[in-house]
């Protein structure tokens, strides 16, 4: 396989895994949010914010995907002629956000669902409740940073 194929697999991993994780996470938190809104529609705005938290990993994956596509010239319509080693390097650079995005989004969804329970019972504790799922975000951001730095640092 040529380098460009590996680079594109990297893009697919970054966007696909992180996006899938976000879909799962937002889905889990959405179930909890629906439960609360069924009983108390006035909490819609608060639980919606909680539900959206695990959606960021998908955006991070997309960002890394765009940077990579731009780097290898696919976005500009002139794909670079990558050797196998460079392609593998780009693939490896995309892995952190793909893997950490998938796992962190699922767990952030679960934490959001639990935090939605706090909002359901004690809406005045919204700020504290949001901190718990936000902590999970840290690790997705670390993975995003590494992926961006790595993709940007690979000479094409």
């Amino acid at each position: 396989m040529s380098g460009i194929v590996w680079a594109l697999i990297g893009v697919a991993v970054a966007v696909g895994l992180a996006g899938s994780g976000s879909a799962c996470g937002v889905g889990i938190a959405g179930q909890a949010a629906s439960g609360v809104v069924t009983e108390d529609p006035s909490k819609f705005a608060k639980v919606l914010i909680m539900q959206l938290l695990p959606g960021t990993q998908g955006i991070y994956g997309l960002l890394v995907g765009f940077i990579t596509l731009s780097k290898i010239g696919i976005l500009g319509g002139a794909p670079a002629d990558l050797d196998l080693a460079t392609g593998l390097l780009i693939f490896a650079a995309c892995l952190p956000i793909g893997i950490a995005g998938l796992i962190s989004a699922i767990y952030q969804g679960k934490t959001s669902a639990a935090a939605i329970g706090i909002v359901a019972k004690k809406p005045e504790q919204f700020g504290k409740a949001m901190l718990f799922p936000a902590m999970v975000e840290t690790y997705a951001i670390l993975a995003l940073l590494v992926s961006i730095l790595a993709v940007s640092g690979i000479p094409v």
Partner: protein
Amino acid sequence: MSDTQYTYAVARIRARENSLLNPGAVEQLMTCRDADQCIQMLTERGWGDSDTPADGEALLQREQEKVWELMRELAPDYSIFDVFSLPMLYHNLKAAIKDVCALNDMPHIFYEGVSPSEQDMMAMVRARDFSPLDSHMAEAASRATEELLHTKDGQLCDIIIDKAMLEAVQQAGAACKERVIRTYADTYVAVTDIKIAVRCLKTGKSREFMRQALAPCALLNVEQMADTVLRGGEALNEYLSRSGFASCVQALEQSMSAFECWCDDTMLDALRPEKYHAFSAGPLVAYVLAKLNEIKTVRMILTGKANSLPDDIIRERVRKTYV
């Protein structure tokens, strides 16, 4: 994703928990001048439906139905709640046996909404054919019927069926994969065994009677407990304190009403840690128990107010609140 199947249900229960009576609301009920004012306050808090008559019993009945309707709607697997219907099922069996064997016509002694129905249960007892029941229940039914016919001893019939019920609860708990149901079953059997032991102590029952009445239990050694009952109240208190039921001893020293309260409060306390699990049936089961306890508390208050009982007598019977 099977570990997230309770996510929606738990979130709804969390929102519902806010509508449970807190100590302040119970205190407000206590300060109502009569039962009618209590009913008005409960109706304003959303108890009953728009078409529920403004009558205490109708209101309580409707609230109880609403709990089970909610669980049928929410629980991905409603069979986990079967353990709650076992006491009613065995009560209906007992009622059918007594009704048929004692040839009494005692209407309204059956719980409704339990399967098999009253008519089916009566037909089984008349035909002495308990094969539609599970083998454990069928064996108890057959034995209780024979004993009642031969000895005419209603209490013996009661303890055979009640012990079988406790064993069934224990088995249902052990067979259930939800930890909350195992905790509920173990605590229910232990608390019921303690109730039996206390009553045996008060009425001076024999070891043989206790052997027939007490069901084996994970939290207590019933053989040892029966021994202590024969040795007297001090020995029983000492045994209960050693077995982790020191609060029961305090309640017993206070009064029998305080002890009855302790029994219900202990069930709720045992399940209280379960309410913090966001992805299990725990909060649902804990909510059911809390709501049933709440209905019991309101019944106490309404009955007390209707009969103009002094507040301190009613207060002694008020159960702990969940929120």
